[in-house]
Structures are given as C-alpha cells and as structure tokens.
C-alpha cells in the first residue's frame, strides 16, 4: 500500500490522540468502580446476614427451599431449565477425598455485589442494611446481572405468572432472587422463611441476624467459630457465611 505524508493528521498526532483516548477509557470505569469500596461498611445501622453450618445441614433435606418458595410464591411450572429458584440445595463431593455434604445456596447479599455494578438502570441495588434487591419497576430484563453473579443466584422470569404473593411481586421479563425475606424484616420480624423452617425441623443449621451488632447470636458465632464465604477470592464480602466448607 502506498504511503502519504500529507495525511490530515500525522502518525504521531494520531498515536498520541489514540493513546489519550484509550487511557481515558481505561481509567474512567476504575474511578467509578472504586466508589463502593470507599463507601464500605456503614457501622451505624444493621447489616442483615445468614450463617449456615453445613455440618448440621442434612443431606436430602429441602425444608429451607420449600419454605422460601412457599413464602414468596415461587413455584415450578414444570420446566426445570427456566423455572425460578431463589434457593437451592447444592450437593458437594470433594474430589481429593470423596467427602460429601450439602448446603443451601441463595443470593449471598454481597457488600460489593457484581449484579449491582453491571446493572445499567440501577434496578439491581443494595439497601443500606445490606440486602440486595431488584427493583421490579426499572428492571429491563437484560440479564447482565445473571451473567455477573458468581453464585448463579438469580432467575429470569420466562413466562406469565399468576397467584403472586402481595409482598413478593414478580413479573415476566424481569430478574429476581432471594430478598432475605425483606418483607418480614421491614415488618420488624427477625427471621427468614428458610431459617424458620430449618429450626422447625430441628436441624438449626441456619442463623439469621445483624452482622453489625457484636452481641447478636450470628456475630458471636462468627467470632467464636469463624466462617468462610463462597468464592471468597472475589472479595465481595457476602452477608451469607458458611461453616464447614
């Protein structure tokens, strides 16, 4: 190809401009992304969370799953691949040892939730008390949050729904997930459907409480026995914590 020294912009000008533009684009998202890290942990006010002791979680027991779905009107439409699941029992087998156990997985209510970061319309949001929710009025159904969630915690509503619970509105074409029974919390109750069911069945594998209150049962258990989180490497600081994995 022939060269042309009288190009409208010299190569040097061009490269300088391109480099500046690319640098701008590289830095700009970082500036925005740093915000949540700065705004971390408001010590005043509660942060609601769950502690799950997997050693007490019985294999084959799905009491928490059934209770959650009953509470929030989530039911199977006979299409497993598109049916919503707000909470599920996951069976684990350690490859090195063959050790098996199971545990419930739901929205982990991260302090730095990737779903909130990627949502273009602020429909995914985190409340000051740490509960991560979807605003059903501004969710456009792009499913980017489902791509971003490391826990596969979210479901897209693939078809029309009937018989919804007034406290848990759901709509075709939007995304949803565990609300940590926010309707109960806002009524002043201090437990969730899943925790209630686990206690009722006598397993007592799940504890709900305020992670910011040092005297709460959940905080004391965490302090005394330690815990871990799923995908701790991502440093999202989930409010759902586990013992025994």
């Amino acid at each position, binding site marked *: *190809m*022939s*060269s*042309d020294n*009288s*190009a*409208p*912009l010299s190569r040097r000008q*061009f490269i300088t*401009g*391109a480099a500046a*533009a*690319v640098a701008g*684009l590289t830095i700009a*998202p970082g500036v*925005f992304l740093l915000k949540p890290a700065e705004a971390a942990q408001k010590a005043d006010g509660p942060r609601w969370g769950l502690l799950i002791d997997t050693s007490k979680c019985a294999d084959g027991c799905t009491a928490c799953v059934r209770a959650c779905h009953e509470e929030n009107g989530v039911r199977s439409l006979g299409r*497993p*691949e*598109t*049916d*919503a*699941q707000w909470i*599920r*029992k*996951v*069976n*684990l087998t*350690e*490859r090195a040892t063959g050790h098996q156990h199971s545990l419930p*997985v739901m929205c982990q209510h991260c302090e730095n939730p*990737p779903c909130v*970061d*990627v*949502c*273009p*319309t*602020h429909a995914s949001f985190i409340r000051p008390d740490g509960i991560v929710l979807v605003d059903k009025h*501004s*969710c*456009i*159904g*792009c*499913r*980017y949050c489902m*791509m971003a*969630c*490391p*826990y*596969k915690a*979210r479901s*897209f509503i*693939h*078809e029309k729904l009937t018989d919804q619970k007034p406290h848990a509105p759901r709509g*075709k*074409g*939007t*995304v949803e997930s565990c609300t940590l029974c926010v309707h109960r919390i806002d009524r002043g109750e201090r437990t969730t459907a899943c925790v209630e069911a686990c206690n009722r069945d006598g397993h007592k594998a799940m504890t709900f409480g305020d992670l910011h209150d040092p005297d709460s049962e959940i905080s004391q258990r965490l302090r005394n026995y330690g815990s871990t989180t*799923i*995908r701790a490497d991502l440093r999202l600081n989930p409010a759902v914590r586990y013992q025994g*994995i």
Partner: protein
Amino acid sequence: MTLKTHFRDIEGRSARYVALLGGLLVLVALGVLAALMKGSQGHYITGMNNQVVWGLPHIFAILLIVAASGALNAASFSSVFGRVAYKPLARVSGLLAMTLLIGGLVILVLDLGRPDRLVVAMTHYNFKSIFAWNIFLYTGFLAVVAVYLWFMIERRMNRYVPIAGYTAFIWRLILTTGTGSIFGFLVAREAYDAAILAPMFIAMSFSLGMAVFILVVLATFLGTGRPLGDLILRRMKNLLGIFVAGVLYFVLAYHLTNLYATRLHGIEAFVLLNGGIYTFLFWVVQIGIGSVLPLVLLFHPVWSQSRRVIAAAAGLVLVGGFAQLYVIVIGGQAYPLEMFPGYDMSSSFFDGVVASYVPSLPELMLGVGGVGFAFLLFALALKFLPFLPASLSDEHVDPHADQSGTRTAAAGA
C-alpha cells in the same frame, strides 16, 4: 492522476432491487413476529434459560455491532490514514457502519425481557455498568458517523472531514472496547474476566467489518452494473487477510495465557478438547473454515485473483466470526460456574453440569430480522442519497495518486 469521483444514488426501479427490498422486508417481518411471540409468551419459547441467559439473538447482535465498527474501515483509511484509494468508498462505509449498528441494537432491545422499558434504560444510568456506557457509545457512534457523512456529502463542510473521520475512528475503537468489556468485566466466569477480550473484539471488528464491506461492495457494484476495478478489491482482500491473522493472534494469546493458569484448565479443556459442539465450532468452524481457509484463499497467488474466491473468503470469515462469538457467548455460559474449587457439585438448578442450550426458531427469526433491517436501511439509503460512487474502475483507484498530489481531485470524501 485520480479522476473526480462522482456519487450517484441508485435508480431503485429494477426488478432485482425490488426483489431485494421484498426479501429484506420478509426477514424484518420474521423478526417482528419473533419479538411479538416473545413479548406475549415470554422467553420460555426460546432456547435460553436460567443457565444460558444470552443466546442466538445476542450472537447476531454482537456480530452486527462488531462488524458495524469495522465497516467504517474504508472511511477511516481515507480520512485518518490518508489512503485516497478508499476515498470513493468512504460514504458507503459510513452508511453501512450506521445501518449494521442499528440492526444489532434492534435485536438487543427486542430481546430484553421488557423492551417496553427502553425509556428506563435511556433515562436511568448506572455509570458503573459498561452496559450503560455502551448506550452512550452506540448512540454517540451513530451521531458521530452521521455528522461525518454529512461533512463528506456537503461540499462546504468537506474541509472538516478529517476531524470527523478522526473522531469516528477513535469512537469506534472505544465502542468495540466497550463491547468486548461486556465480557471482559465479568469476574464470575472463567471464560471471561480477561482484559484481552477488548482488543480481541477490536481485531474481530476489523476483520468482520472488512468481510461484510467486501461482500457489500461486490454486491452493490455488480448489482448496479457499476465498474469495479481489481486494484481496490486486491487492497481490501489483503487487509482482510491481515485482520484475520490479527484475530488469530489474540485467540492464541488468550488461550495460551489461560492454559498457563491451572485454575483455568477446566474451561480450556472444555473449549479445546471435550466441549462437544463448542470444541467443534472452535476448531473446525472458527479456526479451520473461518480463519485458515480464508487466509489460504486470500493469499494464494492464483486463487486470490478471482472475485468469487475473495467473496467466498469474506463469507467464510463471517461464518468463522459467528462461530467464535458462539463459543465465547454460549460456551462461556454453558461451562458451569466453579463456585467450590476442588469439589464436584450438583443440584436441581443445574449446578456443576454443562448447561444445555438449543437455539430456537424465534431466536433465529429475531437474529435474521435484525440483519434484514440493517440491510433494508442500507438499500433504501442508497436509493435516496448519493452514497455510491458511479465507478470504482482502476483509473478511479490509481495507486500512484498518493504521490501525485491530486488528493483534492476527488470531491466529497
């Protein structure tokens, strides 16, 4: 010395043109029908599910958006890099860039769970989201290229063409960075979360955009009986070959980097060895049919002289690009999330298993509808505005014109 370039709209009365419009309208109608079906029934009628949340429509949309950015190549070569040979093609290049992008965006919007809430997306922005950025990048691209076209067509504004061309070129690089970053920013999934996806998408935009552009130039010039010389075609096919090689380089760097990290061996084995349809699409379609074969065709000393061979190579590049996006978008989701490293996991929610995805007819209809809409707009624009040069014969594309100081001879581009 180059001859003055005349631009002429097409007459648009031939049976062939009317048939083309009719065919494209049928595609658009199929897309509209699919959108209505999805709107009334919900996404369960598609192959998409809670495991594979983005499907065939997104492949079509990303292909169109990435190709749109690359369709601007010819205009950029002329206005930014001063290659006068491409000057006669600058207008049609800008036009194609706009219509391809519109086609891709229409697919994306119609695949939303709530396309009726587009106004929410246009009024509520979360600037932490690359999606929100992309809304500005896409609409801004349309605006920048529209102004660029205006400067090219309006004689009084011709002197501002280089500035507009420069802006459009930078904008397209940022735009494709944004598209690649949709995946690059996803920390949760093994197949994504890689900065190299942004430049890889830029390389793909160059090759896919060039491939579409070559096919469109061949079709419009031969279809309207305008002279098309071999000089410009030869330049474009050589560039296409270089761009295809560029994409291969990024693919190689991506997989080599992943192969070095033990934690990513699972996803690499899935794509490269035991992923079934994804492995097939990667090796046979993306690499074999979509990259190596076109390279052979484009650089073979004898075969590459034939227009049919060049057209075939461009078509194969598009097929390869489609397969590449399929592997990235669908394959990346089908591979299970590794939530518990070192454990096998199972559940009623398809944890720990490769997710199934079978593209459905409504998805295909929506995808081809967007493609049809893009080319319908393109075909209509050619009829009403002078985008297409009257001739691209070799005297109009004199390779020595660059040194002869006759750049001002070609008006309007």
